[in-house]
């Protein structure tokens, strides 16, 4: 009986292991899984933007004629994920914990913290994942804005460091404008 179960389970385990391997191989190095977010129970602000490579490529084709520079920038992007979660008494502790966890994981995985800003109630952390000197494979922005909101941003792609500020300008992500300056100084 035990043998039968083992025989039945072995292929399943092998397939599961292989699919896990494939999933790991498929995930781009600049991708960070923030986990799932839910709107605050108090009815506060909740924004989720998740744009994948197929839509980005399409947008690149669309703007190619009129804005070739923007099109080139878009072609380097694979994924843009933005989460803004309004804070209330119920989710504040959890969001702060989540920000700390993400930052800890990025530190452990060798991401480089390029911007740290703590003023008044605002705590901003910007991390980049580089490939040698020539490319940035991922950018993560985490913000805790006092009692107001938590922000998680992940931009994945094959980006030229000097173009990061431009992404900040185009997508209106304030911390990324600072990253451009920080990376430019390096």
């Amino acid at each position, binding site marked *: 009986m035990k043998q039968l179960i083992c025989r039945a389970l072995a292929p399943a385990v092998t397939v599961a292991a292989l699919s896990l391997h494939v999933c790991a191989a498929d995930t781009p190095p600049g991708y960070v899984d923030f986990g799932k977010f*839910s*709107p605050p129970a108090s*009815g*506060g*602000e*909740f*924004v*989720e*933007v*998740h*744009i*994948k490579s*197929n*839509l980005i490529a*399409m947008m690149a*084709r*669309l*703007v190619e004629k*009129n*804005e070739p520079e923007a099109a080139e920038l878009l072609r380097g992007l694979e994924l843009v994920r933005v989460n803004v979660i*309004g804070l209330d008494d119920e989710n504040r502790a959890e969001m702060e914990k989540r920000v700390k966890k993400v930052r800890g994981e990025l530190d452990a995985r060798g991401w480089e913290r390029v911007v740290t800003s703590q003023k008044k109630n605002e705590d901003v952390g910007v991390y980049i994942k580089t490939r040698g000197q020539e490319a940035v494979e991922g950018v993560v922005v985490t913000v805790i804005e006092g009692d107001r909101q938590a922000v998680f941003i992940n931009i994945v792609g094959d980006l030229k460091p000097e173009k990061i500020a431009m992404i900040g300008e185009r997508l209106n992500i304030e911390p990324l404008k600072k990253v451009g300056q920080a990376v430019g100084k390096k």
Partner: protein
Amino acid sequence: MKRPPTSRFQTAAVLALLLVSMTGCFRVSSDVGALRDSVIKSAGAQWDQQIEFGVGAMTLTAARAGLAFVDLDPEARATLQAARGAEVGVYKRRGAQGEFRGGTILRAADQAMTERGWDRIVGVTNGRELVAVYAPQAVRSTRNLKVCVLVLDPQELVVASARGNLEPLMEIAFNRSGRHLVGNRE
């Protein structure tokens, strides 16, 4: 020579089927219907249909032909040329407002749409309002893109979809932004 009644019935059935698929039959499609049903089920409220309207390629072609004789703004004409189909459903909440479960509604809508090959690209909730935008997982062309939109507020639920050619619309957008820039410089 007289045609047998079966043949006439078949011809009529084929014509009716063609008419339904080409005109949109003035009803919403199954994707928009699934989005609506998921919200109605998860929002835990009773809804009265205000309007449900869908127009397909044939109806739009007829509209374009009719409007050919009308002196129309070139941008409005270009927008009409770009449209391939549109549908909208508006439903009014019946009775008192219950608890707003934005997370539950979004999850239900996501599940319904993911099963049908759609990805949510934007989700926003604020207070008792919710907006979600879905795009097909397999986007191949900018010339025939369909998006589905869900808008929910305390009184109303709106589900809509639009299919069209994005290229002329982007052209209009660029022309307008160019004009604004020139205007600002002046």
